[in-house]
C-alpha cells in the first residue's frame, strides 16, 4: 500500500484529533512521517499502527513538554468495566453540539473517539494501539459516556441536544 491521498488524510485526521488545530496537525503529521522514514523506510508502506504510534509519541513529546496536552488524572479503579466501546453506538448528537463537545472533551477522549468512529477499532484494538490496558480504555469510555450524558442534560433545555 502506498501513501495515497486517503491514507495521508486519515493520518492527518488523527493528528487533528490530537491537536485540534489544522496547522499543528499538519506539522505533527510531517514530523511523524520524517521520523518514520528515518527509522524504518521499509515499513512506510505497510504499518498504519506503527505510524500512529510515532505520531502519538511525537505529539506527547512536543505538546506535553509545552503544557498544551492536558494532564489528566485517571481514577481507573473507581469505575465498572462493563462499558464496551459499542455502548457509545446508541448515542446521538447534532453537528452543533458535536463541535462544542469536541472542544470540551480531553485529548485522550478525542483520540479514542477517532479510533472508534473513523478507524472502527474495537476496545482491545484501541488498547493495543495506545499501549494501555483494556481497563483504561473502558474507564475512558465510561467517563466519556457520563460526560455526554451530563452534557446532554445541560443542553436539552436549550434544544434537542444529545439523544441517548
Amino acid at each position, binding site marked *: 500500500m502506498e*501513501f495515497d*491521498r486517503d491514507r*495521508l*488524510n486519515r493520518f*492527518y*485526521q488523527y493528528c*487533528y*484529533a490530537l491537536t485540534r*488545530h*489544522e*496547522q*499543528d*496537525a*499538519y*506539522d505533527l*503529521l*510531517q514530523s511523524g*512521517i*520524517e521520523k518514520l*522514514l*528515518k527509522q524504518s*523506510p521499509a515499513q*512506510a508502506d505497510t504499518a498504519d499502527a506503527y505510524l500512529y504510534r510515532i505520531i502519538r509519541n511525537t505529539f506527547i513529546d512536543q505538546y*506535553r*513538554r*509545552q*503544557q*498544551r496536552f492536558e494532564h489528566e488524572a485517571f481514577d481507573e479503579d473507581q469505575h465498572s468495566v462493563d462499558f464496551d466501546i459499542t455502548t*457509545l*453506538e446508541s*448515542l*446521538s*448528537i*447534532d*453537528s452543533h453540539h*458535536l*463541535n462544542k463537545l*469536541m472542544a470540551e472533551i480531553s485529548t485522550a477522549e478525542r483520540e479514542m*473517539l*477517532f479510533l*472508534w*468512529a*473513523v478507524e472502527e477499532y474495537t476496545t482491545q484494538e484501541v488498547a493495543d494501539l495506545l499501549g494501555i490496558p483494556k481497563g483504561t480504555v473502558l474507564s475512558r469510555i465510561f467517563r466519556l459516556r457520563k460526560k*455526554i450524558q451530563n452534557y446532554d442534560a445541560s443542553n436539552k433545555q436549550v434544544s*434537542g441536544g*444529545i*439523544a441517548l
Partner: protein
Amino acid sequence: MNQKLKQSVHQFYTDKTLSNTQHEQLNNLIISGKSENVDKPSNSGVKNTGQETSPLWKCRINSYFGVKGSIAAAISCISLALLMTFLLSPHSANIQAVATEVASNHSHLKPLTIQSNSYSQVREFFSELSFELKPSSLLDKQRWKLLGGRYCSINGIKAAQLRLLDTENNSVQTFYQVEHRPKYFENIPKVGNNELPLSVAIDGVPVEVWSEGGILYSLTHSPRP
C-alpha cells in the same frame, strides 16, 4: 438534526483533509525520504562468528545479566523518572534556548500559512495569540519587508513565526513574536530599559533576542539569500 454519535464523529474528522499543496509537500517528503534510505546498509544483520554458545554458558550469562540487568533497569527507571519530572515541569528559557529554537525553525523554513506584506492583514490572521502582533521599533520599515507568517511556539507558548525580507542583502529572515512572560523567559534585554538586543550565534546563524512592549522578539540574520 441528530445523527448517531459514530456517524457524526466520522463526518467531523473526514471533513478535515489536506490541501493539495500540503498533500504534494508530504508526497515529496516521502519520495525523497525513501530514496535517501535506499543505499543505506541495514543495521539489523547480526554477524555470525561461527561459535555456538553452550546451554550452560547461556544459563550463566542469563543469570549474570538477570541480577545486573535488574539493578541497571532499576537505575534506568529512576533516572528516567527524574528526567521526565524535569522535562514535564515548566522551566524558563534563557536567550540561548530561545535563539536555538528560533534558529532551528529558521533552518526548516516551513511553508507560510499567510502570505502578506501588510501587518494589519497578518495581525487578523493571528487571532489566537495572547497579544497583538506589531513591528518592533528597532527594525527599519524601509529595510525589513514582511512576507507572511505561520503559527509556531517558543518554550510552549504560542508564537507568531513571521518571515521578513532584508532588502539590504535580499535575504529572507525569520522573525518571532511571542508574549514575554517572565515565568517562561529569563534575562531578556528590555528595549524600554535602554538595553540592547543580545545576539547569539547558533550553528553559524546569528539570532537577536529582545523584548519590547511586553513582546519578546527574535530575529535571525542568516547570511544565505
